[in-house]
């Protein structure tokens, strides 16, 4: 791991390595999710198991409504499963809200289809504010924000507001924001859906490169076929079950 990141990870214990793969950063085991809408119960996930290693890029493919976002939300500790276990950075995740928030704070970086940048904040401030929320303050936050923006190639756009950036540039800011604070896991929901083909390809290649360099586990949910070019593994999801993982 990059030596510069030491201040952001020093309070993390080393994962207990015995029982699991030494490089595993994220695992879900037999996860189920049922939504109740009125009297109707919709079983969206019907026993999903998946593990992601450090530096591994996993593509999650499936038709609309197959439960991709639901699974990603559960992996990102935004949603709790109806059943099943989740391990992030070697730790079992418990269901209470404060613990989930803590995992999101320390271990997860999100990238969304809609970018979800703060429109009133510049590129640099967007990243710096996320670090502030994660408990990194002052000059450390500013320096880390500048570092990750350089990594995504936006060193010369730090003072731009989102409205003055192109779609691709916005998604780069979002990637920088996800990287900031050095979480072990990056989760992206349809990150290229709003981008044209060429820009989408650039974003995916950047994503892959950074996940490798910074040693993150990366899950990209998409139905963009280009993802196959950057993924180490493509996992299909259909009717709430994973299809056989296809080695790429």
């Amino acid at each position, binding site marked *: 791991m990059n030596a510069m990141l030491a201040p952001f990870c020093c309070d993390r214990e080393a994962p207990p390595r015995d029982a699991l793969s030494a490089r595993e950063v994220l695992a879900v085991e037999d996860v189920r999710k049922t939504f109740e809408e009125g009297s109707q119960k919709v079983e969206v996930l019907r026993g999903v198991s998946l593990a992601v290693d450090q530096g591994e890029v996993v593509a999650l493919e499936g038709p609309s409504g197959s439960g991709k976002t639901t699974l990603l*939300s559960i992996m990102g500790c935004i949603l709790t499963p109806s059943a099943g276990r989740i391990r992030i950075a070697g730790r079992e995740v418990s269901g209470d809200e404060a613990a989930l928030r803590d995992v999101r704070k320390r271990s997860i970086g*999100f990238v969304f289809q809609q970018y979800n940048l703060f429109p009133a*904040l510049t590129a640099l401030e967007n990243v710096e*504010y996320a670090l*502030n929320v994660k408990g990194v303050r002052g000059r450390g936050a500013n320096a880390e924000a500048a570092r990750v923006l350089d990594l995504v190639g936006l060193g010369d756009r730090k003072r731009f507001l989102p409205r003055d950036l192109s779609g691709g540039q916005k998604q780069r800011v979002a990637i920088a924001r996800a990287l900031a604070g050095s979480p072990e896991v990056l989760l992206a929901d349809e990150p290229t859906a709003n981008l044209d083909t060429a820009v989408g390809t650039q974003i995916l290649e950047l994503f892959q490169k950074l996940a490798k360099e910074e040693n993150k586990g990366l899950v990209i949910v998409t139905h963009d076929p280009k993802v196959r070019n950057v993924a180490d593994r493509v996992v299909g999801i259909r009717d709430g079950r994973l299809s056989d993982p296809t080695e790429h």
Partner: protein
Amino acid sequence: MVSLARKNLLHDRLRFVITVAGVAFAVTLVLVQVGLFLGLLGKATVTIENSSADIWVTSRETPNVDFAHSFPETTVLRVRGVAGVEKADNAIVQFMNIMLPSGAEEGCLVYGLEDFSAWNLPWDVESGDPTELRRGDFILMDRSAERRFGPFQVGDYREILGHRFRIIGATRGAASFTTAPVVFMDFRRAQGLQQTVHNRTSYILVKVAPGHDAAQVAERIRAVTPYNDVYTRAEWAARSRNYWVVSTGLGMNMGITVFLGILVGIVVVAQTLYTSAVEHVKEFGTVKAIGGSNWDIYRILGEQALIAAVVGYAIGAAMSFGMRPLLAQLHLNVLVSPQFAATVFAGTVLMCLGAAMLSFKRVAGIDPALVFRA
């Protein structure tokens, strides 16, 4: 630290202007209205505050210094005999009719004493000598009379209750809540002018000897004057003030104005902050998704409320002070003490924070999962 609160406020500039305008309006309303009220109320007690009398003996149930009744002038002899009384004198305060050069008859409030200088009345003499009043049919007239009576000059004559007096000087700042101009004349002449005060007096002014406590001396005076009321200076000022506050409905009026000001402030601030919170729901969802708690979001709303409070107060206070010269031209005095200004500031901050809290429930319910929705 990046302040999302501040950046969002400046981003939604129009809304920020409306919020601040609402706060500034409320602050101006309260400062000017209450300031005017206090300025007006100051007139109700100006002679009590300025005279050197520590204790006032009044006739029973006298409601305020202007509305005096009378009691036998010999009562003063008993008061002089009380331990701790250094000096006690009769004083007449009486409305009398005065004839103006125009032929119009007006009312004035006559203060009659034998020894004005002993009681620091009048306290601001522009010209003339109060001790001269004993030597003839002379009066001192307050300059504030010119507003109602027209200009006067020292040496002019005025007829009071059919008796001619020469104006031998002018005073400043002596006023009555009733707006009747104040005239100073010798006690005996004032007594002689009006049948109802023959051998009688309106008040006994008492100075307490050094080392004695005014409240204790007042208690002793009460024992020897069973048909009178006895007040210390502060008690008498409070009684005079309260009379006007309560009887005129001014107090109620003030209360309603302050209430409306605060209500308008709260409604505007609560409304704009709430709309802002609703519009930024997705941003707050993002804050939660990246690990922020409800408190992080409450802090954003609180900081916005605080900024609106400080900026709104500054503008409101500046507007109030800007209005003072204008109101002064209308002979209205806006009295704003530093303590009152500080109280209004604290109230503004509380008002804005309270308004922000009305949005707390809304943002507490925000589901971070909405970050995945279009």
